[in-house]
């Protein structure tokens, strides 16, 4: 069944390489017109997913829908509306950037005349378009790769680590371009390890680990649910403050930080509830010496993928 409002849907996607499970029933739903951050530690299955989405490999099980159409063996025409940059950009080193894009334009979806120069301008590579790709820096190759992905004016853009090798100006330029594309109603799926970049760029994120989706949703919503408030109290008041905080945010949601002083209490809740917690402590006669509220995608990523250092102290 085709899902409305979604540019990309996978259901129960599974892929195995010998004994190694790359994907273990991956369910993704990428809303149309959004920038979707596709996150996961190394080996989580991101690139395998990208390869399946572009028809390079076939899943062992599961289904894929691209732009509201089922995508499987023999449905290559769906890819005419998809642009992709998977792993490292691929070019003929002896041809110029422009010639490479022209060569690529000869395959797959027809590309209107003038489009090659249009995308070269878009990625700020017009001045070097006549130079051989073998002389390009990594960042220039990456920009050319993004230009190649944009060649057929895609409705869905799949980018694997697009910020690789880009300088800060290039990253900002790429971010602006992708945001502009999303504003036009196009959908962008970005796989990246630069979490701060994804936090700036994406509307929605999906986090995969061990071939499964472990968290998916709008960044603001996820960070609200998975946010935390850190409160520092006098060491002698920790045992009083803990139960007070739990009464406000719920049992089992407050833990003690594992710093040597053990005077930070961490309440897992919407960061906007910091004032409420502070008031509760004050009413109980405990005064916080410091309060920090908020959450980062990085903290969420490390927590849900289990790839971060073990920072958990004892739960109160």
């Amino acid at each position, binding site marked *: 069944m085709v899902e409305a409002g979604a540019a990309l849907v996978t259901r129960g996607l599974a892929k195995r390489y010998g004994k190694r499970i790359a994907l273990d029933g991956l369910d993704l739903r990428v809303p149309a017109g959004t920038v979707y951050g596709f996150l996961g530690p190394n080996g989580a299955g991101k690139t395998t997913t990208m390869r399946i989405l572009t*028809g390079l490999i076939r899943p062992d099980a599961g289904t894929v829908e691209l732009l509201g159409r089922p995508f499987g063996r023999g449905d290559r*025409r769906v*890819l005419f509306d998809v642009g992709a940059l*998977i792993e490292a950009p*691929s070019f003929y080193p*002896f041809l110029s950037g422009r010639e490479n894009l*022209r060569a690529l334009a000869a*395959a797959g979806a027809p590309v209107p005349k003038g489009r090659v120069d249009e995308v070269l301008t878009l990625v700020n590579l017009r001045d070097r378009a006549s130079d051989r790709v073998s002389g390009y820096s990594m960042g220039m190759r990456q920009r050319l790769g993004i230009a190649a992905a944009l060649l*057929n004016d895609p409705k869905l853009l799949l980018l694997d680590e697009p910020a690789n090798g880009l300088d800060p100006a290039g990253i900002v330029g790429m971010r602006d371009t992708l945001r502009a594309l999303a504003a036009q109603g196009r959908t962008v799926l970005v796989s990246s390890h630069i979490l701060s970049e994804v936090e700036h760029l994406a509307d929605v994120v999906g986090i995969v680990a061990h071939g499964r989706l472990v968290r998916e949703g709008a960044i603001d919503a996820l960070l609200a649910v998975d946010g935390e408030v850190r409160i520092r109290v006098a060491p002698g008041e920790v045992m009083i403050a803990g139960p007070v905080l739990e009464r406000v945010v719920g049992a089992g949601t407050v833990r003690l930080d594992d710093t040597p002083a053990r005077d930070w209490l961490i309440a897992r809740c919407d960061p906007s509830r910091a004032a409420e917690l502070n008031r509760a402590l004050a009413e109980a006669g405990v005064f916080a010496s410091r309060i920090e509220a908020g959450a980062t995608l990085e903290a969420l990523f490390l927590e849900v993928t289990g790839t971060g250092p073990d920072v958990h102290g004892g739960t109160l």
Partner: protein
Amino acid sequence: MRLVRSNLQRLIRRPATLVTYLLLIGLILLIYLAIVVAAQQAVDPQSALASRLILTFPDAWFLTLSMVVGLGGLLAVTYGASIAGSEWAWGTLKASIARGERRAWYALMGIAGAVIMAWAGTLLAYTVGIGAALVGANVIKATSDTLLDPANAGQLVVLLGRAGLAIAMDVAVGFTVATIARSQLAGIGAGIGLYLGEGIIGVFVPGIIRWAPFAAVSAMMSGADGALGEAAVTSTGRLDPGTATLVVAVWLVVACGLAALWTERAEISG
């Protein structure tokens, strides 16, 4: 057609094309230089006569073609392998498939582009070879009165057609080996190994090897005589030219089919 056109535009710029052309032309020129020197300096009258015959028209038309197809065949195998292998190595096949290109079609058009470039190189080398033969004939003062002998024109046209088929098959075999190996170097190595190995194995099991691609090319180019329906195997143990032509055509189709099938079914990663 845009894929073939794009392939040709790309292959013209590709260093491997220039290197292959120069290698073939250089080898042909070297061979003719050696023949001229041998014709002039040979003390043995038999050797001198043999060298003079190579430079004497109309036979020079056929001997040059035979040389170009022999040397060009080996280079065509490596050329086909280098083109297919680089598609995997550089990831350009991946990029095209991800754009929705038909896999099998992409492979077949890749072969077509390489074959056209190989034909152009072979024709160029043949022209240079004929030029070298003419210069050589002039140097050793051999007659070139029979340069344009209408009686041989028909046979030459047939052999030129067969040379085209042979080169196409060589390119396709190299392309297919590299497609299966997914590697430029492995493809070139395996292609050369196959080419040379066939000759070596042929010493021990000639009955089987005569059906192999390169032995069939050799038999096909041995003359324009022989047609389908005649005895398939000549008294020398090689296939008759007509049967050999059919065998080479079958190898071409098999190689193209395998390359297409392999590309169609491959899991493309990296």
